[in-house]
């Protein structure tokens, strides 16, 4: 699969009175054309900051501290603003968490949808109006809703409008930051099915961000797990389902009560996420890790990449075997 987006050693910092918060630390991943890539983790792990860094929506005190973002051969981090603005909507768009805060309450849906189109094609004119109607149909909303104000629509309908807007210029990458988190499960399911349908139809890539790992396992092709600003594991959906390798991913997966199967006690993950101003040395997960060894607190684990994906954990040596397996293999 050819690469559409390549993120290399992305680092983002927040300045705070107590010191520098390393919200995103050396994160690298890539997304193929037409691929749905998920980024999961708990609050404060840097998943949304990563998305904001990619589409240059960071505002002070956040600042890009290093790394590169290449979209379809274009280096985004060094692009002058006016050139980057041309890429917004047309090459990539973003769908944010709560649609209620993304739509302007005093403008009708019609003018908000047309705004994005006209900004890129000033001559669109009448055609823009037609396109707005098509976009509404695309997300299964009746065209007469174009004359509604956002408050006249339900939460799910508003989220559909925001998704329609993101589709307006047929971008090749759509970033979705918790697009369904504030919605009821039945509404969420409808929107997810719609997103997958549109993705199939237009073939764009998706960077899907959520804390809801089961949802991610249902819809993403590959999944990256972040913890305390670092990407600790990347694996395909199948690999994640059959058994993730990083102890944090394992703990996270066992924190979601399953719907089926016999009732058994879930253990969760002891402790709480670290202070990112003074993160623990070595592997940032070691204070909460049941399998921590001596080197975990002193050395940062190298990223091991193999056919199963990649993982940053001392339990796995270069061959991708667990320490027990490796010592057994040596004997």
């Amino acid at each position, binding site marked *: 699969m050819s690469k559409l987006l390549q993120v290399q050693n992305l680092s983002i910092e927040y300045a705070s009175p107590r010191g520098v918060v390393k919200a995103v630390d050396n994160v690298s991943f890539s997304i193929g054309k037409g691929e749905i890539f998920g980024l999961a983790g708990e609050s404060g792990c840097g998943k949304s900051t990563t998305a904001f860094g990619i589409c240059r929506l960071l505002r002070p005190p956040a600042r890009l501290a290093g790394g590169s973002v290449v979209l379809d051969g274009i280096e985004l981090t060094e692009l002058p603003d006016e050139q980057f603005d041309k890429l917004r909507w047309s090459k990539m768009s973003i769908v944010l968490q709560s649609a209620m805060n993304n739509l302007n309450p005093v403008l009708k849906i019609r003018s908000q949808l047309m705004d994005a189109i006209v900004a890129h094609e000033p001559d669109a004119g009448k055609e823009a109006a037609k396109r707005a109607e098509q976009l509404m149909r695309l997300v299964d909303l009746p065209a007469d809703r174009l004359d509604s104000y956002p408050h006249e629509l339900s939460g799910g309908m508003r989220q559909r409008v925001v998704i329609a807007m993101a589709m307006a210029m047929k971008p090749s990458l759509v970033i979705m930051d918790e697009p369904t988190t504030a919605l009821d499960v039945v509404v969420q399911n409808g929107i997810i099915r719609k997103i997958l349908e549109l993705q199939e139809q237009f073939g764009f890539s998706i960077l899907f961000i959520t804390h809801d790992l089961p949802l991610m396992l249902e819809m993403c092709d590959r999944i990256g797990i972040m913890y305390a600003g670092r990407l600790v594991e990347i694996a395909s959906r199948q690999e994640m389902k059959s058994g993730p390798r990083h102890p944090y991913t394992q703990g996270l997966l066992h924190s979601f009560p399953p719907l089926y199967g016999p009732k058994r006690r879930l253990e*969760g993950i002891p402790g709480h996420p670290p202070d990112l101003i003074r993160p623990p040395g070595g592997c940032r997960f070691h204070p909460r890790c049941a399998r921590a060894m001596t080197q975990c607190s002193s050395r940062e684990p190298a990223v091991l990449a193999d056919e199963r994906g990649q993982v940053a954990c001392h339990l796995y040596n270069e061959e991708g075997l667990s320490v027990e397996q490796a010592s057994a293999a040596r004997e």
Partner: protein
Amino acid sequence: MSKPLLHVNELGKVFGSRSMFRKNEFRAVHDVSFRLEQGEVLAIVGESGSGKSTIARMLTNLIPATSGDIMYGGQSLRRDKRLGRKLPTFVQMIFQDPFAALNPHHTIGYIVGRPLLVQRQWKGDTRPKVLELLQKVGLTPAEDFIDKYPYQLSGGQKQRVMIAKVLGLAPKVIVADEPTSMLDVSIGVDIMNLLLDLKSQEQLALILITHNLGSAKYMADRIMVMYAGQMVEYGPAEQVIGEPLHPYTKLLIYSSPDPWRDASLTMEIIDPQGMEIPKTGCAFHHRCPHAGDACRTKSVAVTKLGGERQVRCHLYT
């Protein structure tokens, strides 16, 4: 038969204002009945606006019911005026948002100790009792926490403080309204486990309000599914999740993300497209793939089936 710990009978709540010219009413809860025994966990599930939090607030007497009755150990909340005053020692509530539920001006020690003094369960210095309570909810060493302010604690720790505060009055029933939805999942599991442990240790009954079927199944012995203010299904948790009866329950289960389910399972879904809940017939008929003429015209009563199961649907009448 002995009196159940909690008996809710045809409970209803209508919000609204009436003036000379206009009547503006919203039926939030309608005809909800159930019982709760000591040591039992009941999960009330449903989407936002289904009335589940309204039930929680009526159970704890934060708002009065407009019809029906709530009985604690045989005493009626409506008729027995004395029950209202001592109700806090009988039922306590844990709120969804621990960040908003704790007064930022007071120390943890004050917050946890205060109900003991107000309800005259304790005389003099509450400190030893508060330390014991903090220990019980896993905030150890308790000495480190008692003089802190809420802002110095994480979300999970704040929720533990809420639980400690609630335990102080040794209630028989705890109503937990989405106790983990504001917390990270790994922390939420700890809170669910703590509640389950306390339930066994203290012989509590627990009512869990949630929109998450997974946590309902994890915590509860019985599940009650709410839709549009009505109870549509009730039964043992395993059965409600494993063999749902009501089309709405089926839809909820089908919609909940679960990567391990049988992917070949499909379901006909009718998108309501912002349609309002119908006023005649079954409240779910506009979204129900099985809806017939009776569903559109006749309202449905609860049908009691074998094995404690109940369902409000014309398919089973």
